């Protein structure tokens, strides 16, 4: 199994997509820090305080989730797109093991991209705030929570992306499907249905609980477990009914 995870990581490392996503996320992270720090105290917004650090370093969490989902989806649907799935299955005929290796590999990939981005945002935000005379430290409990929550949600998004890709092996359909789900179903339809209490059990709300507990979300632990369960359920169903189909 380690061998297969290594092979999946090698696939990721040997195409430009991964580096492009990582670079874009790091750049986006820096931008959010710069925008937040420079706009604080302007035009009626509250001035920057030491308590803002967790929100500042954790700001790219949503974008990172999207990036990790994208990597996970392309990690499996891309193999069908480029027909590389044939070679993958010739080397490893057990399709369940292939999907399992991808789950692990893309969880790691999501964590790696998040770790890089957070390292960049933290190393920009921290000295900047210290320079402004605010005494902040990464050892602050809330900062630790924000960092850990972001790493975790990015990792789980990589895993869920693989699940979605296994379920919808066409990459465009999978990406559009995720967008429609998050924006239309969980966003619009849910508010129209007006069933209080349902929303927090759906995938993107469960993911949001990791970085933003409270506000009607589940606890961090429950949200994380539920989101991971979604990813595994998609993978099992996808492997059983979609990935198992003939490769022609």
């Amino acid at each position, binding site marked *: 199994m380690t061998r297969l995870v290594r092979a999946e990581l*090698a696939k990721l490392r040997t195409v430009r997509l991964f580096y492009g996503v990582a670079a874009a996320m790091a750049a986006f992270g820096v931008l959010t820090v710069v925008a937040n720090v420079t706009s604080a105290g302007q035009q009626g917004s509250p001035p920057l305080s030491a308590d803002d650090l967790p929100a500042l370093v954790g700001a790219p969490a949503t974008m990172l989730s999207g990036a990790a989902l994208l990597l996970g989806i392309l990690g499996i649907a*891309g193999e069908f797109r480029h027909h590389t799935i044939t070679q993958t*299955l*010739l080397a490893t005929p057990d399709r369940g093991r292939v999907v399992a290796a991808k789950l692990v590999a893309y969880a790691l990939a999501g964590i790696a991209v998040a770790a890089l981005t957070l390292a960049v945002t933290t190393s920009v935000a921290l000295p900047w705030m210290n320079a402004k005379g605010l005494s902040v430290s990464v050892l602050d409990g809330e900062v630790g929570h924000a960092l850990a929550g972001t790493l975790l949600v990015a990792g789980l998004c990589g895993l869920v992306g693989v699940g979605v890709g296994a379920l919808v092996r066409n990459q465009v359909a999978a990406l559009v499907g995720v967008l429609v789900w998050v924006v239309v179903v969980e966003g619009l339809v849910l508010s129209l249905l007006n069933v209080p209490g349902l929303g927090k059990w759906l995938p993107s709300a469960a993911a949001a609980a990791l970085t933003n507990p409270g506000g009607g979300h589940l606890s961090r632990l429950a949200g994380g477990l539920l989101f991971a369960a979604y990813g595994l359920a998609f993978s099992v169903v996808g492997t059983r009914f979609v990935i198992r189909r003939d490769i022609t």
Partner: protein
Amino acid sequence: MAVITVEELTKRFGDLVAVDGLSFEVDQGTVVGFLGPNGAGKTTTLRMLLGLVTPTAGTARIQGRPYRELAAPLRHVGAVLEASSFHPGRTARNHLRVVAIAAGLPRARADDVLAQVGLDQAADRRVGGFSLGMRQRLALATAMLGDPEVLVLDEPANGLDPEGIHWLRGLLRHLADQGRTVLVSSHVLAEVAQTVDQVVIIAHGRLVTQSTLAALDARTEQSVRVRTPQAEALRPLLTAQGIHANLAAHDQVVAVGTTTEAVGQAAAAAGIVIYEMGAERSNLEEVFLELTGPQGGTS
């Protein structure tokens, strides 16, 4: 000893029967041409053999086991399937390294096989910029990565230029000389006729014949082509003498399995005028076409 055993293999796609109760065996150390026209079911058969397509019925085994049950498949079987199964953004060397990692093979194998197929100069180029011939070479390199005893090649000559086809023949011969078993498909007999020991010919998903190339060669027949203004009269005359004859044109008769002497005698006896007559020998390709044509599949 049979290395590849296909038994009563059947695949239906909805109403279409792609492979229909196909059985054949490939013995160890032989090079077998798997032949049939486009759409005969060759690719589907090979994909079932490699565990990519699930048979509707029947079995396909390599070294006694279904492909999916081989412990380290790439060490036993190397396969070339469609030419474009590469990520366009990955280099040739990295493509091979990824496969080597997944199969638990040493990294250095990537460079070994690149040299073997003559792609060492292109090792660090992205596959997206490769010509069809280069992709086919890379596919062959991938097949040889695990140094397998068995090679399954689906139309490996597709996209190769004449020089490439010449090279491929040499490679197949070389692999066979090392005692490997090769099953190579083609829709053109001539492409593989110089390389294979045996042929398995299929049409419409069914086995037409499995024989040695020599036995197939023995089926080539002499025929006599006659140009005469009385073609309509000559044909029944020959038929009456037990000679199989067809009208090839309004003034031409082709008599199969006979000699110019026999046809000349028969024509003279009936006072039929002959303008032109010549003996022809059908070639392997014609035998192949006859076997796989609309009326084929009976032997």
